[in-house]
């Protein structure tokens, strides 16, 4: 499994996941810098993501939607707050919006910091996500269920158990 460490902070509503990928850091960074690759990993296969706008530069708003098996669309955005390309780290706010990509102020926004470090040709990735409130986290999970993430989870669980 590429996931090497997970830590939950119940008080700070923070999830930190570390993973190792068998590829150089430029390759992993390239996934986030390229909308066509990013959409392959962001949504589960049953709810594919489509990035309509995407630029990995500070201040850019990357708009995307996910499509349900019934064809229903759910839209979200990343507001890129910081990019350090030489240091291979970037930060963004992840939120929900309507299908015209107007952010929905009633939905929570998570603050995320992704950092990638190369070690002997492999990449150590640290994903750091924080929610302002537990209500917000619950809402995101309600959306996660909408995304059909649970089915993907069960497949991964089966893999781990095998």
């Amino acid at each position, binding site marked *: *499994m*590429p*996931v090497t460490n*997970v830590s*939950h902070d*119940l*008080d700070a*509503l923070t*999830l930190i*996941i570390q*993973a190792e*990928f*068998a*590829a150089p850091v430029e*390759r*992993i960074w390239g*996934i986030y810098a*390229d909308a*066509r*690759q990013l959409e*392959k*990993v*962001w949504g*589960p296969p049953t709810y594919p993501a489509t990035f309509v706008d995407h630029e990995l530069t500070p201040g850019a708003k990357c708009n995307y939607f996910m499509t349900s098996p019934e064809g229903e669309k759910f839209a979200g955005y990343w507001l890129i707050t910081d990019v350090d390309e030489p240091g291979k780290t970037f930060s963004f706010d992840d939120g929900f919006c309507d299908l015209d990509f107007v952010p929905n102020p009633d939905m929570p926004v998570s603050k995320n910091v992704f950092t990638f470090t190369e070690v002997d040709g492999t990449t150590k*990735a640290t*994903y750091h*996500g924080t929610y302002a*409130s*537990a*209500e917000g*986290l*619950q809402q*995101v*999970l309600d959306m*996660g269920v909408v*995304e059909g*993430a*649970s089915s*993907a*989870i069960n497949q*991964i669980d089966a*893999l781990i158990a095998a």
Partner: protein
Amino acid sequence: MDNEANQQAEDAADAMFHALADRTRRDILRRVLTGEHSVSTLAASYDMSFAAVQKHVAVLERSGLLVKRRSGREQLASGDLEAVRSVRSMLLELEDIWRGRISRIDELIGMPVDPNT
């Protein structure tokens, strides 16, 4: 779930998160999860009035995270592990979404890069 049941679940979640949004209440909860404490013992642990601590205990009780019983003149409080686990389970659920993304990255880097994309 019908709308009414859904509304009740939402109300219960609101009460739980309101209860956990306070540092003192989280601290009280940590103590009572390790075992039963009398409200007066809890009150002695904080630099605030007995009434203030009692209020915090009441908020935790309404959220279902803490249960109280009476023993003689004492009120004894203990934490409800099941209710607490559901908060933990939310972070676990989020973790699962992330594990899905990470495993898709792993799959993607195993494939040759398409120069047309």
